[in-house]
């Protein structure tokens, strides 16, 4: 029997008994544990590349609740490459306008006008179960096109043994236990990762602790599609900060930051939640529009990561490996980037087109990214809940000045939106080009003749040749754009008349040069593949 750890929003992959449960233990190249955004994205990526993947989830679909509601541009770009982004952007809410309040007054408003020449906006708001369902739909479509992806719902890993070259898993099901072996295991099983616990691995780093009361309310009332954020809201029992955010289906996310020492049970009483929500909704208009409480939860966060995201053949991705505060939407978004970072590496190593040493790059690259995310979300946390008297004084000084002075508004930090990191140590960088496209960064998107640049980078190593640079014979796919769109030129050429970029399967730029030099490209490729 598999006891539920949480309530499921929808049964996407109901339990079905498979022949393997009564057969001798079978060995799989890749087993993923956990069918959240990270596990599903990884399964889809691997399967589309033709590498067989088995995903085990101890439930039968996404957990209930809106959870990670903000999906950033990079996630949408990755989802687009995987063929899953169209329903996400179709369903998701795009917002530009925000208001920041301090105590009972409005400090300022902002309008995030989207930057031209990108397929995707900076972010969309979308309930996490939809995000997972759209990835799952893309998996079903890929399976129909013979992608070797299998998902087994209600399959819970209860034990594992790590051997030199494989992992042996004990799996429990409604029909009893069986065993599976895997060349590689990827733990995408969330912040409370049972796999991490089974291996006796923990976390280190700076720890923040706070509680957020989350209330999803359904309102038909005409309420603006804006993000409202309060520092020290003056309405009753609101806590240190409060947030109002629009989601699809007339649902609004309301967050109250309650502090660490709270009575969870009491705070979750519907009457108490409604009193808070009433006070917030009426604070600007004086009236409480009719609403229903859709979902409420108390969310506890910590900012920390595992020391290493890999232990032998076991990889950790997403919240199993790193946790951040919710400010900046750096949780699920960075997890999807973990999946993208690992997928092509596992695929190449399993196909024999790269040596296993390539896999040694996963952990340091994603640990670097996690440190950047933890830094940003810790800074936002420090701003929102100052830890010392003097940091409170400076924080309040910023807020006091922000009402009348633009310079102070840039210090106001209720979260810095998730953007992909620039990996260190990439190169060479021999082009005197724009900083945004320096080696290590994700290739910026830009318009091309029939769409967008990132559409041309379809998941393999490639060489992008721009302007008057001339390609020569090489064994890597070459994409040539002789007459780049002005936005593309601004983002990848700068003042140069031509440029040559070597780009990884995850669209991160390996190196760049002013001219096409095959030996230099081969050398950079060899380094990127960790070839000895």
């Amino acid at each position, binding site marked *: 029997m598999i006891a539920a750890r949480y309530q499921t929003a929808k049964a996407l992959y109901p339990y079905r008994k498979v022949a393997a449960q009564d057969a001798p233990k079978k060995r799989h190249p890749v087993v993923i544990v956990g069918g959240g955004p990270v596990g599903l994205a990884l399964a889809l990526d691997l399967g589309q590349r033709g590498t067989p993947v088995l995903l085990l989830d101890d439930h039968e679909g996404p957990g209930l609740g809106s959870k990670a509601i903000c999906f950033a541009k990079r996630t949408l770009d990755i989802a687009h490459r995987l063929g899953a982004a169209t329903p996400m952007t179709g369903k998701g809410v795009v917002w530009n306008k925000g208001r920041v309040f301090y105590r009972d007054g409005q400090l300022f408003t902002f309008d995030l006008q989207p930057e031209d020449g990108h397929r995707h906006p900076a972010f969309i708001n979308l309930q996490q179960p939809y995000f997972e369902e759209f990835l799952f739909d893309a998996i079903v479509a890929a399976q129909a096109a013979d992608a070797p992806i299998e998902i087994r719902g209600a399959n819970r890993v209860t034990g594992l043994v790590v051997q030199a070259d494989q992992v042996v898993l004990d799996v429990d099901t409604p029909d009893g236990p069986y065993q599976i072996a895997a060349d590689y295991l990827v733990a995408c099983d969330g912040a409370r990762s049972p796999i991490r616990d089974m291996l006796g691995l923990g976390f280190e780093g700076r720890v923040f602790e706070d509680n957020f009361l989350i209330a999803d309310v359904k309102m038909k009332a005409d309420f603006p599609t804006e993000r409202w954020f309060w520092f020290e809201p003056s309405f009753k029992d609101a806590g240190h900060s409060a947030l109002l955010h629009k989601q699809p289906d007339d649902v609004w996310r309301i967050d109250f930051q309650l502090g660490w020492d709270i009575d969870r049970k009491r705070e979750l009483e519907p009457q108490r939640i409604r009193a808070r929500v009433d006070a917030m909704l009426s604070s600007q208009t004086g009236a409480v529009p009719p609403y229903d409480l859709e979902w409420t939860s108390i969310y506890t966060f910590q900012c920390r990561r595992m020391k290493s995201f890999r232990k032998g053949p076991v990889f950790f991705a997403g919240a199993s490996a790193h946790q951040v505060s919710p400010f900046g939407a750096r949780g699920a978004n960075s997890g999807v980037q973990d999946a993208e970072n690992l997928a092509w590496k596992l695929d190449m190593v399993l196909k024999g087109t790269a040596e296993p040493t390539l896999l040694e790059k996963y952990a340091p690259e994603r640990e670097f990214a996690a440190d950047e995310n933890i830094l940003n979300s810790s800074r936002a946390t420090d701003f929102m809940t100052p830890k010392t008297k*003097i940091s409170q004084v400076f924080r309040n000084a910023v807020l006091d000045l922000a009402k009348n*002075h633009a310079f102070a508004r840039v210090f106001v930090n209720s979260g810095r939106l998730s953007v992909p990191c620039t990996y260190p140590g990439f190169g060479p960088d021999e082009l005197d080009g724009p900083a945004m496209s320096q080696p290590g960064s994700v290739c910026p998107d830009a318009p091309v003749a029939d769409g967008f640049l990132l559409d041309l980078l379809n998941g393999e190593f490639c060489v992008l040749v721009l302007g008057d640079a001339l390609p020569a014979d090489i064994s890597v796919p070459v994409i040539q754009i002789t007459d780049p769109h002005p936005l593309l030129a601004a983002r990848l050429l700068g003042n140069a008349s031509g440029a040559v970029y070597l780009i990884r399967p995850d669209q991160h730029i390996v190196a760049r040069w002013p001219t096409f030099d095959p030996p230099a490209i081969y050398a950079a490729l060899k380094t990127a593949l960790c070839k000895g």
Partner: protein
Amino acid sequence: MSLTLTPNIPDPDDFYDELIKAHEGLSDTESQALNARLILILANHIGDRKVLRAALSAAC
């Protein structure tokens, strides 16, 4: 540009007087808040991170 640590204010006594007077009648909490606002305003005016870092170091 480097941090100026030689005399740079033409009428130092007048400025010092103004600075102290700005705090007249304020509680310690209000004074601390005023100082914080002033530091932020001046820091933004300077802008140069190298100079700001040198100033932080000189003040410590």
